[in-house]
């Protein structure tokens, strides 16, 4: 079984966490790894349904995502967490709990995120319609020593994806693409070929 681990994307809303994490997941799947994404927005509709945005509720939400990542990681799955996770203390808690934890900071100036505002929530928050909105009326604590910093306002998407994958290779969580001979499916094909020939 491959070694599981967790890649944790943190950053302001609209900083690129979902976009980059999806592409990283795709790249890792191509290399034959099992990958699961736990996206903050999706998790809040099921696992953390009913939780609000107070510090306490936010911490519970992040710990829940971290807990699932831990279960997946220890069973050989690559767990990708993508959530604002604004508080350093609870991110560090997840790091300690999971162990094999790679923190990716999607660094993007607030003004750029406001400009992107894909969900129109910044607009509402700035108008005072949404309380406790990270970056506007709630704090975001930058990671002090993340494994990867993505400057999503300056980098192309593919550069950001490559940075994450390169770090995972450096940390030996994944083999460099050129060092992998077969995906799992291909290996099965070849094993079948060898079996048919009586070579296995």
């Amino acid at each position, binding site marked *: 079984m491959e070694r599981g681990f967790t890649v944790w994307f943190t950053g302001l809303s609209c900083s690129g966490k979902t976009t980059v994490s999806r592409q990283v997941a795709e790249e890792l799947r191509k290399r034959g790894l099992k990958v699961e994404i736990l996206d903050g927005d999706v998790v809040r509709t099921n696992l953390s349904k009913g939780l609000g945005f107070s510090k306490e509720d936010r911490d519970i939400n992040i710990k829940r995502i971290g807990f699932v990542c831990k279960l997946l990681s220890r069973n050989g799955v690559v767990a990708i967490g993508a959530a604002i996770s604004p508080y350093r203390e609870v991110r560090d808690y997840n790091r300690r709990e999971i162990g094999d934890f790679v923190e990716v900071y999607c660094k993007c100036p607030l003004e750029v995120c406001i400009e992107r505002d894909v969900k129109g929530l910044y607009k509402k928050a700035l108008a005072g319609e949404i309380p406790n909105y990270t970056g506007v009326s709630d704090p975001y604590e930058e990671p002090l020593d993340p494994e990867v910093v993505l400057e999503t306002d300056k980098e192309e998407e593919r550069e950001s994806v490559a940075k994450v994958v390169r770090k995972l290779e450096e940390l030996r969580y994944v083999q460099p693409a050129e060092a992998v*001979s077969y995906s799992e499916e291909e290996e099965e094909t070849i094993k079948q070929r060898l079996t048919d020939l009586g070579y296995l």
Partner: protein
Amino acid sequence: MRFKGKRVLVIGLDGVPFGLLKGLLAEEKLPHLAKLVESGSFKRMNSIHPCVSSVAWATYMTGKNPGKHNIYGFVDRVPESMDVFIPTSRDMDAKTLWEILSEAGKRVVVINVPVTFPPRKVNGILISGFLCPSIDKIAQPKEVARVLKEIGYRIDVDAWQARKDLDRFLEDLHLTLERRIEAMFRFLEGEKWDFFQLHIMETDRINHFLWGLWEEGHPQYGPEFIKYYQKIDEFLGRISAWLDGDTRLIVLSDHGFCGMKKEVFLNHWLQREGWLKLRTETPKSVKDIHQESKVYSLIPGRIYVNLAGRESSGSVRFPDEYERVRDEVKGALLGMTDPDSGERIIEEVFKREDLYHGPHYNDGPDLVAIPRNGYDLKGNLDKKELTYKGPLVGMHTYDDAFLYIKDVEVRKEDNQFGVMDVMPTILKLLEVTPPEDLDGEALI
């Protein structure tokens, strides 16, 4: 397009025995080969242990023993985890003939040689062999895949077909060979090269599934078998007609073949004799061996001691118990007999120090059992009987490969040399200095 200068063209015929060709030549069934052998050396050559194509061609292309190149079979295990894997070109820890030639500034084209997947970079073109899962990934440079698709190139025949419908298998064999030859001529004539090698895998495939039928004189498949070899002969005729005075032709095989009486399941025997214990009734791989096991086997005839500190489930202590276990298993293997005929099954058992040396010596099998002709050693863990007679009717032999070099005198006698010696011979023909750590020696 013809280019002046010394060049070498190699045709690899997988698993074609010297003895078979000699016999067919005597019967005047291979006129083109007959003409070729009038000028040049045609000799019987040894293979390598264990005698399978991946090990033999790895030995050929590196000029080194498996202790140096690290390919010991079509399947291997990681002792620390007991994970089973298929060794590929990435596991081959030695420069290949075509890489050495590339570094010397020669341009090479290499097609279909086993254990060249994933294709490593060369100065020229490398199209890897049957361990490649798809044409998209087969070649270096990658664009070559497009040409192969145009031709309808096939990586390998469907061996499963042979188990269901021999007629369709034969059709597949013919078509695959035709497409391979078509690809060869496309590159032979369209590319500039100093070294060119085409590997024909189909001969090994037909031998596995039709050899026994030919031997017993099957009314349909006996003649079909010969017809296929005559098709190979016609191809050799086409090559001879194509040759210019500056190109040396080499034709060789990597091992011989003989009829197979039975498959022999060594792990079943090891279990029965108390050397091997499994953790489950339905074992899937060597991962399922019990830590009380003393030894286990991988195909063909490779036997590994379940060594403490090496195997994850290891329990045999080094060195005293290790040596005792090896001696006892070796002795017992030599006494193993066919339950039906009482015939001895094992001809010889080598300790690894008898066969291998080099940085990957420790990755090799602790013992290698060599069967008598007719008994093919298998590594299955789930068999409930020692022997089985199935659709496979041919098996590999060590001492009956062949080497032909046109217009050149090979200075060794039959079986006084092996596949390892061909690579330094080719380097000499192309006037390229061989690396110092080769195990093979030039034959000219």
